[in-house]
C-alpha cells in the first residue's frame, strides 16, 4: 500500500473541515479559537507535505513561521477573551453582539 502526497492532503482537508464546522457551530469563544488552531494546523500539514514532495526547505520554514504567528495570535486572542469576559461575564459568542447593526 503506497502512501501518496494526496493522502496527506486529504487528511489536511478533513482536519480543516472539522475545524471549520467547529468554528461555526461552537459558542464558546475559546473552543472556537481552538478550532481555528486546528485549521491552522491543517494548513501546516499541507505545507509540510508539499515541502516533502518538492524536497526543499521553504515549506517547513513557513510552518515554522506559522506556528510562531499562531502562538502570538493565541496569546492576543486569549487576552481579548479575558478582557471581554471581564466586561460581559461571558465568553459565549452569541452574547458578544455589541457590533450588531
Amino acid at each position, binding site marked *: 500500500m503506497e502512501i501518496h502526497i494526496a493522502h496527506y492532503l486529504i487528511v489536511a482537508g478533513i482536519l480543516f473541515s472539522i475545524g*471549520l464546522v467547529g*468554528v*461555526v*457551530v461552537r*459558542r464558546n*469563544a475559546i473552543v*472556537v479559537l481552538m478550532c481555528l488552531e486546528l485549521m491552522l494546523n491543517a494548513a501546516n500539514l499541507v505545507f509540510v507535505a508539499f515541502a516533502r514532495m518538492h524536497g526543499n526547505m521553504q515549506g517547513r520554514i513557513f510552518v515554522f513561521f506559522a506556528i510562531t504567528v499562531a502562538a502570538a495570535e493565541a496569546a492576543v486572542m486569549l487576552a481579548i477573551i479575558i478582557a471581554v469576559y471581564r466586561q460581559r461575564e461571558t465568553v459565549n*459568542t*452569541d452574547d*458578544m*453582539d*455589541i*457590533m*450588531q*447593526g
Partner: protein
Amino acid sequence: MDDNTVATLAYVILFAPVVAAILITLFTRKSKGISAFLSVGSVVTGGILSVILLFDQLAKGPGTPPVISQFEWAAARDSAIGDIVLNIGVQVDFISILMSTIVGVVGSCIFVYALGYMKGDEGWSRFFAKFAFFAFSMLGITYATNFVQIFIFWELVGVSSYLLIGYFYQKPSATDAGKKAFMTNRIGDFGMTLGILLLFFAVRDVFGAVDGFSFVELQRIFTDEASRTLLFDAMGWKAGLGAFLIFVGAMGKSAQFPLHVWLPDAMEGPTPVSALMHAATMVAAGVYMIVRCYWLFAWAESAMIAIAWIGGITALMAATIAVVQNDIKKILAYSTLSQLGYMVMACGMWGAGAGMFHLATHAFFKALLFMGAGSVIHACHTNDIWEMGGLAKKMKHTTWTFIAGTLALAGIFPLAGFWSKDEILSASHHIAPLYWIGVGVAFLTAFYMGRCVFTAFFGKYRGDGHPHESPAVMWVPLAILAIFAIFGGWVGAPADLNPFGEHGLQSYLLVAYTTVAEGAHQQVINWPTGQGHMAKSLHMNVAVIGTLVAVAGLFVSYLFYGSRKFSAEKAKKMFGPIYTLVSNKYYIDEFYLFLVKKVQQGFANLCSIVEQHIIIGIFVNGLAGGAREAGDKFRKMQTGRVNTYVTMILGGLTLLVFLFVVGKEFWG
C-alpha cells in the same frame, strides 16, 4: 462740416450725459451744485450741438447720405457662415439729428425745470445721475447704427425708466410702477429680439455674409427692388412676422395696446421724469424706430395693417379713459398714450412723415403740459384737478403756457398740433374706420383737455393750500416750450403755407424715407397714395373737419365744466355701465394682474411643488431614502456575532471556490 466732425459731435452728444452720470455717481454725490451742473450741462451741450448739426444738415440739403462711424463691440469669426459682428457707433442723418434735437432741446428745458422742481430732495445727485443716464440711453437709440445697438439702448432706456419711475424707492407704488414699466418693456423686447434674429438670419440666408443688423445694409437691401423681392420670396409669411415682432418692441416702449399698462402707472416718478419720459424720449422711441426702419415696415403689408389698427385702438381707448381721470398727471398720461397711438396709426398707414412730425410737435407741447402740471402740483400739493381751480389768477405764467399747450394738443389752427394732426388725418382719411377713429380721438382730446383746463385753472379755488407762481427756473422753460408749441408747427406745414416753402421739414423726411413708402404703396397695395409724399397744399376738408371737432370738443367741455350748463354727474349716470368700464380702464390692468398673480404665479408655484415633491421629494430624497431603507434591511445581517460572519464568509468562499474551480472545470 466734414464727416469726421459730424461723427465726433455725435459722439460727444451721445457720451456727454453718460460721462456726467458716471462722474456724479462716483465723485460728486455729496456736492449738489456740481452734480446738477454736470448733468444739466451735458444735456444742454447735447442740445446745442444737435441744433448745430441740424443746421448743418439743413445747409447740406435733403438727401445727404448718412455719416456712419462704428467700432466692433463683439464678434464671432466664423469662416463657414461668415463673421457675425456686433457694432456700436453713430449713424448721423436727418432723422437721427432731428430726434436728437428734439431730445436735446426738450430735454434741456426739462433738466433746467428739474433744478427747480427737485429742490430740497435728499436724492438730488442720484436723481441727476439717473436723469443724465436716461438721456444717454435715449440718444443711443437715436444714433444707433444697427439693430443690436438699438436693442442695447432700448433695454437701457427700459432700465433707466425703471430707476427713475422707482425714484421714490420707499414708496411701494413707485417701485411697483417701475417694475411694471420694466417688465412690460421686457415683454416688448422679447418680441423685438426674436424679430431681429429672424430678420438677421433671413437676410443672411439669402445674401450670405451680409451684416444683417446694420441699418444701412438692410436699407440698401430693402430699397432695391430686386434684392427685396428675393428676400421676401425666401421669407414668405415670415417677413410680416419679423416686421411685426420688431414692432412689438416699439409697442412696449411706445406703450401701444396691449402693452400700454405701464405708462399711466409711471406717473409715480417725479414730474420732470414724466415729462422727459412721456414727451420727448422713451415713448417716442418706438415711433422713432418705426420711422428709422421704415424701409422694413413699408413693404410688410400685413404688419403695417396690424400696426395701424393697434395705433388706432390705443388712441381711442386711451382718449376715452383720459376723459374720466381726475389726476392731472393721469389725464396727461392717457393723453400721451392716445397721441402715441395716433403716431403709430399714422406710421401704419404709410404716413411715417406725419408720425415723425407729430412726434416732434407732441414732444414740445406734451413736455410743456407735464411741466405745467408739475408746476401746479408743486403749488397745490395735490394731483386731483377737483382740488384745484381758479389757478389762472394765482399762477399766470403757468396758466398761459398750459393753455397754449392745451390748444396745441387739441389741434387748434395754427398751433403746432394742428399741422401734425392734420398730416395724420390726411394720411388716414382714405381708410374710413381709422379715419373716423382719428376724428373721434381729436374730439375727445379737445374735450378732456378742456375739462382739465376749465376745472383746474378757472372757477373757484377748491383746495386748502395757498398756491403761488413757481420760481423762474421752472416757468422759463415752460415759456420756451410754449413758443415752440405755438409756432413750431409751421416748419412742417404744407408747402404753400410753409414759411420755408418747398424746403419744409417734410421735404427732408421725404428723402430720408418717404420715397420708400411711396414705392411701397404703388407696389404692394392698391390703396390710394397716403401721406407718403409731401402735401403741396392743405387738404381742405380734412383740415376743416379736424379743426371743427377740436373746437367742438373744447366747447362741449366748456358747457360741462366751464359754464356748467350741463351736469357732468348726469352724464355719468346716463352712461352708467360705459362709465364704469372706462373709469376702470377697461379692466385691462385687472386682467394682467390676474395673469401675473394667478396664472404665472400659479404656474411658478406648480413648478415649485414639482421641484419640491417630485424631483427632490421622490427622485432625490427617494433615492437617498431607498439607500437608507436598503441599509436598514441589510443592517439586520450584521448580527454582531462572530459565528454569523464566519458562516457567511464560508458560504461566500464556498460559492466562489465552487464557481471558479468546479464550475470552470465543467462549463468553462
